[in-house]
């Protein structure tokens, strides 16, 4: 095994590089399919590839479980993560922060845009109930929430945000096919820009395939991936609004 400095997977001892993979090949099961699977694993950078299980899926496909040792490693010192720049506060702290620093209700307009009908993520962040004990924004006394639900065209969301005087816009994109969620998201950002309201709102997106880095690239202020709770999103919104307020004040004073 080629020795590289850095971090690599740990199975049951340091630097063994142990990795499990599972995938399906669109060919009938047999020696050729299994060998092809091993060769693919080698191309993935896995040494000593093993197929520990292979199963024919009705004639046209073979499902494979494999093991190998990853020969790559990552230098931790060189790792940079684009992170949402906010301190996570709980329900009470967010409301107190909003009351004391902003002195008014924070208006949030949220929607699943395009043809996406999956409101699970949006509801986890916005609905009274929230998710897993983390209350949604509707329960925050210092927030006013307008949840537009699913399949909302970008135009409707943008129009409603202006109408409601939104401080923040939340867009959820769950289902995607051929990366249509990316086009959808960047169009909204462009639309807000074109209408001259982009700077007036905190623009946030979320979904299983969203990362902060990707969101920033698409023209958003923040992106939240799986496992994000409402308190995290709320923390970001109030702190970002406060940051902007301070920037504006500094600008007026300067």
């Amino acid at each position, binding site marked *: 095994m080629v020795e590289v400095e850095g971090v690599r997977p740990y199975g049951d001892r340091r630097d063994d590089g142990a990795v499990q993979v599972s995938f*399906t090949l669109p060919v009938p099961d047999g020696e050729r399919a299994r060998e092809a699977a091993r060769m693919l694993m080698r191309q993935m950078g896995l040494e000593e590839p093993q197929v520990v299980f292979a199963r024919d899926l009705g004639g*046209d496909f073979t499902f494979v479980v494999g093991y190998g040792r990853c020969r790559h490693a990552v230098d931790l010192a060189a790792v940079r993560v684009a992170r949402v720049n906010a301190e996570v506060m709980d329900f009470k702290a967010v409301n107190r922060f909003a009351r004391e620093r902003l002195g008014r209700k924070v208006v949030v307009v949220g929607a699943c845009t395009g*043809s996406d009908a999956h409101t*699970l993520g949006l509801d986890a962040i916005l609905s009274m109930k929230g998710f897993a004990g983390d209350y949604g924004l509707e329960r925050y006394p210092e927030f006013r929430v307008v949840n537009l639900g699913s399949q909302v065209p970008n135009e409707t969301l943008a129009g409603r945000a202006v109408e409601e005087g939104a401080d923040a816009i939340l867009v959820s994109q769950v*289902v995607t096919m051929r990366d249509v969620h990316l086009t959808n998201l960047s169009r909204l950002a462009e639309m807000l820009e074109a209408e001259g309201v982009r700077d007036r709102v905190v623009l946030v997106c979320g979904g299983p395939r969203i990362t902060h880095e990707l969101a920033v690239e698409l023209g958003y202020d923040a992106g939240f991936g799986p496992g994000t709770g409402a308190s995290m999103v709320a923390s970001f919104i109030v702190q970002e609004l406060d940051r902007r307020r301070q920037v504006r004040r500094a600008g007026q004073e300067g």
Partner: protein
Amino acid sequence: MNERPAAIPADLELDGRLVDQAREDARAIAREVLDHVREHTTTSMERTALRLAGIDGVDAEGTPLPNLLVEQMGAGLGYGAAYWLFNAVAATGLDPMAVAGAVAEGRIDLARVPSAPPGRVRELGRAAARAAVAAVDARRQERDALVGRLGNPPSPWLYVIVATGNIYEDVVQARSAARMGADVIAVIRSTGQSLLDYVPYGPTVEGYAGTYATQANFRVMREALDGVSQEVGRYIRQVNYASGLCMPEIATMGAIERLDMMLNDAMYGILFRDINPRRTLIDQYLSRRISARAGHIINTGEDNYLTTDDAYEAAHTVIASQFINEQFALSAGLKPEQIGLGHAFQMDPEMTGGLLAEIAQAALVRALFPGCPIKFMPPTKYKTGNIFRAHLQDALFNLVGVMTGQGIQLLGMPTEALHTPFVGDRYLALENARYVMNNARGLGQELALRPGGRIGRRAGEVLERAAGLLGEIRYLGLWEALEQGFFAGVRRDREGGKGREGVVLREADYFNPFLEALEGGGGDG
């Protein structure tokens, strides 16, 4: 569908008077709505009549002919599309499809065709309706013969979805699934189709998180499933969605192409797609009449309440809705064995003793609707991307399904919440279900519930709350209950939502020979 009822539902000591009261309230709730239904028609209902008369295809711009004709009838729609169509047939001597073609080419304006003798128009319409119903009956007999020869799988039937967007790719995955043990194949629709006020035409290879429901796509999949049914020696059932703005048209397509199940909920479109409540309930009645005749099993969608509401707290709303769905179904002529009432295994997996509440709920549904093939939906809400825990959640779900004698088990996927199922995920899901259900088969017949124990008490409480809710809804009426947000916490105004403009008052001499023929075919409506 079970040979012997499982002891667990049978052991529930339910208050029989409460059950009767709940059913009586649901009957009254449905009756009030059906009175409204009988006075109205909708654009989709009239397009359905045209489809049953044999009109299919699109014009040069791609507009479906049934839509084109209904648009031309405009304000005259209250007399029934069949009146205008068969008046033109009587006046011109053309057959319905030729009349539609002439309308598309601008050679006939239905409103300007001279009036033929009303008796003649009705005679032609009724003959066409008899032929349409006979064609539906023929497809049903075909299914009966295939099931008779190939047999039914043990219950619960294993139901999986395909959703590639391309019908030909769907076929490859459906065949693979059937060979791995699936009994029922549902083709998920392209997201957003429920809001289209027309049915797309022809085979389609592009969709968004699903494949368009078109008659040609139905046919492609039916042919593939018939082929693989012969190969695996089981009749593989085909499912699609009679829901959204074209509910009865899709039920008709499903009848013509011998689909076996149609997803069809009384309130799903109202609550979750913001379709006008009146439009939905009117369309629904006809779609269920068609499904009743076609021998479809309908699947209701109470599981959806639990993705927005809490499954433990809102458990009674599922039961209340099932009672209402049951009454709407019975009054449209569906037999209990055609009513696949839905519910789901959606409680928080972190809840101590949560499995007991899931067993209580599944057993309660089973006990309340003994003649219905209950459709059990898998956990989705608390799937986090941890595919290994998700697989375990599905195993518990499968255990409860087999133990309590559910009829149709929609299999959970370990990769739920991540992407549409990979072909390998479907294999893992089927293997999970076959392992658990085979290994635990008969368990429900052997275990007895502890009298006065937690499962029995929980079931009794849920029933009590459901009965209370039904009483309130009966007092308010369904329209008002929808306006007050009784279901899934969503409020819907009877005059709001999409498709309201398609609701039309029937004239005194409204003519719909297809509805007449379907209503003559049984049911107590």
